[in-house]
């Protein structure tokens, strides 16, 4: 049995062996149902500004779901998540602008490249323990803008980035960024696929169980034959591929990629989404995305004070709500039931 567990995980293709956890069908239906509700709500309102905000929520949901897989479920303090996002965005940008490939081809390719980069970062990371994981991955994040600056000759465009990404063409139709409704539908499909893949396929499989076991009892699970290193690298690859996919999609939506996506503002926002929502408790992280995106839009009226206010909100919310929104809601519900 022990050796079987081991071989079962030797190839990613066999992951879908068994789904675990209670209420698998019920939870899946609830998730798909709420996705349909968002779709209906968006189409009903039909306003371009609302579409734009929903698109942002969809894209960030995919990124945060990928991050949650690593930080919340695998327990790996990876701070290089936006590196994967940037790699996906840049890969798709360079393939479509420099090599002239259509967006439909470059976005999946970007996911593959993102996954490879994720695995490459995971190989040294898997050797590290504790805070060194956080330090190393964050060093990668911080160094990437300098690398992009220096690889201008390869088509990264240095600090100006890559401009003029082509829109997505599908079934003989071209969706320009002005067509917010079509982009909203596509973004929602992307987000649903990514989130489903992470929370309902990867995490509910034996692979997901192994990740939880590695997080909660590393020595014991190793003794039972779980290959922690391989699982960790694979978790990085999945997370990075999905995040890279989201990054590529985002790049084609905005039609530009600049090193700004690695700036502190984005990092802070992503981190706050995860922190407010709660790590490792689906759907907490996704709630965090909604709260932060809506909050950020609301703060736009503060203009030049926006970043100060954002910083203050982060400080105050962390001090006041250290148990995260997900935990907070859970406690409230438990109290109500009791």
């Amino acid at each position, binding site marked *: 049995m022990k050796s079987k567990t081991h071989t079962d995980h030797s190839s990613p293709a066999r992951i879908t062996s068994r789904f675990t956890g209670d209420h698998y069908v019920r939870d899946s239906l609830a998730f798909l149902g709420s996705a349909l509700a968002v779709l209906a709500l968006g189409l009903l309102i039909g306003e371009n500004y609302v579409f734009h905000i929903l698109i942002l929520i969809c894209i960030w949901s995919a990124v945060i779901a990928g991050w949650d897989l690593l930080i919340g479920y695998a327990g790996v303090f990876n701070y290089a998540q936006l590196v994967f996002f940037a790699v996906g965005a840049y890969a798709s940008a360079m393939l479509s602008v420099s090599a002239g490939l259509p967006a439909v081809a470059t976005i999946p390719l970007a996911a593959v490249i993102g996954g490879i980069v994720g695995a490459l970062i995971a190989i*040294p990371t898997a050797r590290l323990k*504790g805070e*060194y994981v956080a330090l190393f991955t964050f060093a990668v994040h911080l160094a990437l803008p300098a690398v992009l600056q*220096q690889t201008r000759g390869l088509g990264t465009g240095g600090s100006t980035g890559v401009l003029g990404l082509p829109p997505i063409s599908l079934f003989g139709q071209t969706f320009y960024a002005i067509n917010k409704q079509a982009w909203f539908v596509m973004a929602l499909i992307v987000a649903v696929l990514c989130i489903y893949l992470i929370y309902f396929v990867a995490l509910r499989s034996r692979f997901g169980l192994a990740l939880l076991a590695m997080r909660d009892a590393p020595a014991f699970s190793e003794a039972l034959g779980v290959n922690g290193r391989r699982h960790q690298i694979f978790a990085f690859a999945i997370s990075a591929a999905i995040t890279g996919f989201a990054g590529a999609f985002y790049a084609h939506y905005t039609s530009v990629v600049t090193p700004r996506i690695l700036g*502190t503002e984005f*990092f802070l926002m992503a*981190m706050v989404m995860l922190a407010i929502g709660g790590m490792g408790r689906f759907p907490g992280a996704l709630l965090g995305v909604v709260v932060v995106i809506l909050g950020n839009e609301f703060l736009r009226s503060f203009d*030049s004070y926006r970043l100060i206010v954002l910083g203050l909100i*982060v400080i105050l919310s962390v001090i006041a709500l250290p148990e995260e929104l997900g935990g907070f809601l859970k406690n409230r519900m438990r109290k109500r039931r009791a």
Partner: protein
Amino acid sequence: MNIVEILISGTTQGAVYCVIAMGLSLVYGTSRILNFAHGALYTLGGYIAWYLMYGGPGLSFGLAFLATLPILFGVGVVLEAGLIRPLRRHPNWQINAIMVTLGLAFVIENGLQLLFGPKTKTIPAFIEGGISIAGTTVSLYKIALVFMSILLVVLLELFLARTRAGKSIQAVSQDLQGAAQVGINVNRVFGLALGLSVVLTGAAGILLAPIFQISPIGGWSPFLKAFVIVVFGGLGSTRGAMLAAFILAFLEAVVVATVGPGWSMPAWLIVLMVVLMIRPKGLLGVWEN
């Protein structure tokens, strides 16, 4: 570029990196906080000194420098008591501390931008001119900079090794529980460590102002460098940070001279990766984890 230039550049940069990185390492060693506002506090030092010189009181460089240090120390103590201490009660406080300091960096950075505007400010060097060493001209200010940086580092080391407060910092960083049990006021030590750290980084911000100027977002680059130095040197080891600062500064000087200035950060990262692969706890790291 000749070898003398590389040596001079490596020494000056190394001395300054030492000051910034030791501040970061000190706080990490004692209170396990990765202070993301370290770079913003570096900038804050420069702005306070600039304000004391040109904004209001019109002090001289030396007086402004000396007056800024206690202000910075106070800032550190207040930040520790007000922002970090409330977090410690919760199990995942380390992540919360990272977020709080990141938020703080935003507040400081944008606050400075609102107060002083986005334009860079400059503090003129207090000594002009240069001397020639083996055919290379070195500005006197850079030499003064090296001496002042080394002075700060030596003072810190003496403080840590000789005084009661310094020894309590060392005790806390070695064994928090044990230190608390023998009656060391741990919270006061945390405050002291962050205060000293802010003094060090702020002092570096003032000393480097004549060379790099002061701008609201100018703190990220020194923070990034200090960060790599601290990881490279080994967490919790100020000596390791010192050693790493000079090694990386000389590496930077060589890379700048041979490949180009933009390549220093990628080169640092490669070295960091190799070191972590061979020795996962850094050069002189004390924690296995």
